[in-house]
């Protein structure tokens, strides 16, 4: 559990690289520690926790969570009470930010062509940015980076893990990002209005149905590529639902701007609504959206815009949604498994289930409690963040 990661040794070697002897020593150390870590990783380890967040979003009591090869090997309920730092702790699947700017703030603002499906958000990520550390400290272990929604079709999003040392890309090709609303209208290119936007998209969808558009669009209308539509206004949501009447999707709608009567329009469809980021200034009718939808069985996930809106933005968004009517279980799912579904990576992450990647956060309490703190963060079974002071205070030898 507490083994040193090879990258520490690597950094050590760079500092002394001028001296050949040190280089040799460093290479040796690197090799040795790599071997050691593989040996450790193969050895299963177990964490005993007070509570954990089950896939349905409920808090389940005391469990033994066994890790092997960076994955959850087994989760067993136990009567044995947890002790030490993790006695009151809650193990939660790593949080997922569906609208993140981690390492990519200002890098994805392409806005020349209204229809630009070939753009890849993955190209805009700076893996050495300090944002990764910030995200980890808040328990965000995965993020979806979208091309900025300034075009009707902006390209494909990337889904990454936030451990910069390993640069794990869960998905580089999707979902395909579409947008409606004023942020798309420009005076120097079409569309310049809401009606223009829809006319262009309708044409595009027709072309794609005939298989004559960009391969990504052709795939999308056939259901081969998931889609995510940014809708500024409730009327954009209605327009999108009309637009997608004859084609597959949309898989998710990003919409924060107020509830109106969306719940009735959306219920019965397989569309998830992504809300957020919510802040302390968000008007009540927007805060109520998450609860209204989720109480009518529309799946709701959260966007946090970490780090632009602060490091704890995902949890804050969820907590505010709960205060304004969302069920706590649904909100916990919205930060984890529902978000993983939207990102299309639910087979890998999003819940503590056998066979999934061991990406998880140990919170001092329910993650929806804003005074619960992040004690430790694991990605692929390796600890990538620890609040040493808190662990010591809680009695862990660390």
């Amino acid at each position, binding site marked *: 559990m507490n083994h040193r990661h090879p990258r520490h040794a690597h950094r050590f070697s760079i500092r002394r690289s001028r001296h050949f002897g040190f280089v040799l020593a460093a290479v040796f150390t690197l090799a040795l520690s790599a071997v050691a870590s593989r040996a450790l990783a193969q050895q299963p380890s177990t964490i005993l926790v007070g509570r954990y967040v089950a896939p349905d979003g409920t808090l389940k009591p005391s469990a033994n969570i066994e890790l092997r090869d960076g994955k959850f090997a087994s989760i067993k309920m136990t009567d044995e009470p947890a002790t030490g730092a993790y006695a*009151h702790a809650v193990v939660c699947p790593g949080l997922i930010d569906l609208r993140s700017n981690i390492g990519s*703030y200002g890098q994805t603002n392409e806005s020349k062509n209204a229809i630009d499906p070939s753009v890849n958000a993955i190209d805009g990520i700076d893996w050495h940015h300090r944002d990764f550390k910030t995200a980890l400290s808040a328990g965000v272990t995965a993020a979806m980076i979208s091309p900025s929604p300034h075009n009707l079709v902006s390209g494909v999003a990337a889904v990454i893990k936030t451990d910069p040392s390993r640069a794990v890309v869960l998905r580089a090709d999707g979902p395909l990002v579409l947008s409606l609303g004023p942020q798309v209208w420009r005076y120097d290119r079409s569309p310049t209005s809401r009606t223009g936007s829809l006319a262009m998209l309708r044409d595009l969808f027709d072309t794609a149905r005939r298989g004559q558009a960009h391969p990504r669009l052709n795939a999308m209308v056939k259901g081969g590529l998931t889609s995510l539509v940014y809708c500024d206004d409730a009327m954009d949501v209605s327009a999108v639902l009309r637009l997608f009447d004859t084609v597959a999707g949309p898989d998710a709608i990003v919409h924060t701007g107020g509830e109106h009567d969306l719940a009735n329009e959306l219920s019965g469809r397989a569309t998830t609504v992504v809300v957020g980021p919510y802040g302390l200034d968000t008007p*009540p009718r927007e805060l109520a959206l998450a609860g209204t939808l989720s109480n009518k069985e529309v799946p709701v996930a959260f966007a946090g815009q970490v780090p632009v809106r602060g*490091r704890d933005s995902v949890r*804050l968004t969820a907590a505010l949604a709960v205060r304004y009517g969302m069920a706590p279980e649904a909100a916990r799912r919205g930060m984890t498994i529902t978000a993983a579904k939207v990102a299309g990576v639910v087979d890998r992450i999003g819940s503590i289930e056998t066979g999934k990647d061991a990406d998880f956060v140990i919170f*001092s309490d*329910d993650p929806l*409690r804003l005074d619960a703190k992040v004690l430790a963060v694991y990605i692929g079974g390796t600890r990538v963040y620890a609040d040493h002071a808190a662990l010591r*205070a809680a009695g862990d030898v660390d």
Partner: protein
Amino acid sequence: MVTAVSRFFVRSSSWRGSGSRRHAGFQRRILALVAASVMSLPVSVFAQLFDRATVIENARIVTQTGPVVERGSIVIKGGRIVELGSEVSAPMFSKKIDAAGKTVSPGLIDVWSGLGHAGASSSADPTSRASDAVATYDHEAFRDALRNGVTTMFVGTNGGAGVNGIGAVLQLSPGESGPIAKIIDDDAALCVDFGSSESALGRLKTFQKVRKAFKKAEVYRRALEDYDEELKEYIEKLEERRKEKEKEEAEEAGDEKDADDESKPKKKGDSDDESGGDKDKDKEKDKDKPKPKPDPKPDPKPKPKPKPDPKPDGAGLRPLLSGARGADGENGKKPGNDKGGDKKDGDKDGDDEDDDELEKPEQPAPDRKSDVLLRAIDHELIVRIRAYRSASILNALELADEFKIDIVIEGATEAYLVADQLAEAKVSVVLGRVSRSELFQDGAFRRHSRRNAAALSQAGVSWSIGSGGSATSSRFVGFNAQMASGYGATSQGAVGSDDWLSRVTSRASRVIGLGGRAGRLRSGAAADLVIWSGDPSDPGSRVEQVLINGEIAFDASAEGDR
């Protein structure tokens, strides 16, 4: 009353049988008496009947004064908590609220709010008051605060860098109509803003500006004191002269006994002419430079609240017009009339026969801004200094030390860098919003740290937390406190405690000068409280009811879904 009535009847029965004229009088008397007793009795009886106690039963009570009462009752009467505890029984005829499974906490306090104050800003003028700019009828904004359990808030003045006015404390009030916020203290603190300029020089300039203002107030006070001294001397000398003259006249009178009857009043008039002439001189001076009226009463301390010119009506103007400037109460000081004895009936328009070389002391020009600052120096007003950067915080401590003022530091983004100095100076800190963008920021938030509050706890600095002067996020002051405490709990080892609640209740009450009157549940305190569906720390808990002064101000069940 009973004895009086019976005595009346005893007396009246002895009168029975006497003349009918008497009897009619008696009937009238008894009618009057019955009417009087009906009118007097019910007052107390009705008061007893209608001022029924409200009892919240079976509640888990987070008192903020001691341990949590796991199951108890709160008895409320006359807007106050009269009894609280696990062994309390409900009085007869009381309204009962069953709170089984629910938690009662004090109403939350936002120590740094901008609610109902959106867009209102004054120029940096110490005499401006936040209470003048609060939209107390903004039901929508305040109701959202209520539904999140916030009952009380401090609003400051926002005049930009400098000394900018006097803050107010608001309490939300129950009811659908009328003002939803009540100003319970319009004189809560003197607000000073050290500015959030990125440039160190800019911040230093503001500090010097504020320091000069305080310095000027001290100089002004010295001038007032000197003036009082000089005026006293002047009056003494005048008196001396008058006595000398009287003596001379008496001697003259001794020589000319015939003229005695006429000369005496005339002489008296002469002496009045002196002062009258003096007044004329005064008036002339006033033409170029408005001078306050000579205030003969040594009153070094300006009155707490300088009132505007107290002569709105003709009656007030008359003495002024007729030249009796004695009524001209500048600085809110009482019109001087102790020297009026020999002047009042004097001839104001008398010829200027003044042969006096005595120069009348000049009163310092009134300085209302300094008056306000002097109240801070006299500890009548606490000074709330908005300082974000560490250097500004140290400047604030310097200011407190130099002028011996009581300060609270607001903002304090970088307090963690100077936590020890704050602890040593025993200065309380009011923090603002915890969750901030992690992108690079300049100015006030350049080095903001989520562990700010933790460092303050560790160093032993008393802190509370508000919404950061926001007009929209006052409602979420509890969430903000929870975030600050989450990081703050580390050093205390008290993960999962209710630390955050104290930051927005008991500690908050202290820092805005309400002391024990709010933020705590105990007998004698105002019944401002929140009934939560569960533990207030539990994310799933909702605010079910809010009571303000014992009256239900918010009821979730009555609001429907929203």
